[in-house]
């Protein structure tokens, strides 16, 4: 499988504080690649750089063989980013929010309708989409935002803690939606500190701590390599 994203020697510092100390990884077409690690490991900073929100201090990032830093507008057309603590415009109705976001990506009215219809199907919110976002529960808002990030079938969906703050049932639904869209061709780069979620969702995993990647591979490879029963044990073993 060709690489959608290639990251080499990525570093990011805020003054003297080093957030990312030099990471290398690839995301292949049609796979879910996960960055796992504790809070403050550098996951969000890495995702924000790839989402064109932050600029790297040094390193090389190629998206579809193009330099990500040189042409961020090209990248923004083909990716979608779901931040961990994302919100939607509270005074907008759910459906209006989806239309508003679809308008940025669609070239024609038909394409916009296709995007919105797809998003409506993902949310499964039905009539509630005709009400204001401010009245939604956290789970409903998260589904709306996930639908927003997947409705265009982006080449790369960057999902930061996609099930953060959701109850078990909502989290399960979100994972199923992500898997479904990967089958339809979208590549996913996600971050989480929920190792069980990662094991269910990801094709390949990178363990990150203090801005450095400790190990990477498929969950099965990593478990074999570290003689561990699950990714939590793999992570503990990698730290040693």
């Amino acid at each position: 499988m060709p690489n959608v994203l290639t990251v080499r020697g990525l570093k990011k510092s805020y003054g003297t504080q080093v957030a990312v100390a030099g990471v290398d990884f690839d995301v292949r077409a049609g796979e879910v690649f996960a960055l796992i690690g504790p809070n403050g490991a550098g996951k969000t900073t890495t995702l924000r750089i790839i989402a064109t929100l932050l600029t790297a201090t040094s390193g090389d990032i190629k998206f579809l063989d193009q330099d990500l830093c040189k042409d961020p507008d090209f990248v923004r057309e083909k990716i979608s980013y779901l931040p961990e603590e994302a919100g939607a415009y509270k005074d907008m109705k759910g459906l209006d929010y989806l239309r508003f976001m679809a308008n940025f990506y669609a070239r024609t009215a038909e394409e916009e309708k296709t995007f919105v219809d797809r998003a409506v199907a993902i949310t499964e919110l039905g009539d509630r989409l005709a009400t204001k976002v401010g009245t939604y529960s956290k789970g409903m808002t998260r589904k709306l935002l996930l639908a927003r990030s997947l409705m265009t079938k982006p080449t790369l969906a960057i999902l930061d803690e996609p099930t953060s703050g959701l109850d078990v049932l909502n989290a399960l639904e979100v994972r199923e939606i992500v898997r479904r869209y990967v089958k339809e061709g979208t590549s996913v780069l996600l971050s989480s500190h929920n190792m069980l979620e990662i094991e269910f969702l990801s094709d390949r995993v990178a363990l990150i701590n203090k801005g450095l990647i400790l190990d990477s591979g498929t969950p099965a490879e990593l478990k074999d390599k570290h003689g561990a029963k699950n990714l939590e044990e793999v992570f503990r073993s990698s730290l040693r």
Partner: protein
Amino acid sequence: MKKFANLLKKEIKELVNKQLVFTLLFMVVFYNFIGQVSKKEIQKIVGVQTISALDEDGSGGSQALLKGLESARFKILDQSGKTKEQAIEAAKANDSKLLLVIPKGFGESLTAFKPSEIETYSFMRTFSIIGTRGQIVVDGVVSALNNALSNNFLKEKLPGFDPQAVKNPIKSKDFVVVRDHVAQGSATQVAGLMSQQSMLIPIVLMMIIIYSSQMVISAVAMEKQNKTLETLLTVPIKRTSIITAKMLAAGLVGLISAGVYMFAFKGFVGGMTGEVAKAGAQAGGGALMRQLGLTFNTTGYIVLGLALFLAILVALALAMILGVLAEDFRSAQTMIMPLIFLVMIPYFISLFADMNTLSLPAKILILVIPFSHPFLVSQNLYLGNWGMIAFGLGYMAVIFVVLTVIAARIFSTDKILTMKLRLGKKKPATV
């Protein structure tokens, strides 16, 4: 363009919410109400008022005084035949504003050209200006009578002399010179008319700047507070379009809000002054201002409009930067303060000081503040200082470009997410 229109529509919809519409409607109704109340009170002042008079003299002189008051739109309730105490009680009971007591011998003293006394008792039932009006008019009538009587005296004693020339041997004929225009009138009158004529400029400027800037700052701060900014920054639209859409929306809504405010304010002021009084004041003054070339022609209005427009653009660009510094809606409210100060300083200086007589440091301070220039432009237009006008407009344009470049730079870099003005504890950056 489609994406920009989409964003602009969203920004305008966010700004024009129920709270804004309610606030503007309330303002119109409130100011109109206050204006109407003031109008009625003023009508009461200029309308017929009732006073009581106790004429103990009954001479031709006392009758002339009472007739003079009647011609000054007073309804006089005659208290003749009563004692002073009875007349006071009667006046109190019949809602008279004032009791005028003309003592015995008043007319005789007048004809003998001896000092004559009258007594007035003002009933202060209210401490508004209505309560003092009776006293003021009586003073006016007494003064007119004094004038007439002294004229008669002078005519009798100095036949062949004009009593006015005897009383006021020096007459002052005042002229005002502005550049190459000369007109008859007093400098005080011209200064008064000038301040009346340009009173609206600072008010309009302040209202638009405050409304629009607050909207821009809040628009950016709300994106941060609602956690929508990161998503917006990753959609395929140029960062400069995001800035422009926010500034344009705030500018438009701010302009409309300021327009509504001015309309409401006009209703309030209109009620206070009254259309008739305004027309009267403007008739004589307008001719004097025209003679002195102190009115704007079409070019003047265009230049003034351009100055106001540039000041608004500068405020919006500055507000955009301040909005980035705000962490949430609450802190956005305090971010508007530096902008308000920057507008207030030139406003007050233009009210109380003359730019030309200020010390050099104060002059530099004023010229550095971009919001000083619309005030200075209006003054310089009157005085024909086109060099200063061009400097002011150019300076504001440069400041706008610099601030916009800074705002665009902030929006295009990490700073949009990392730049914060924290007045409390420092939080570590999210990694």
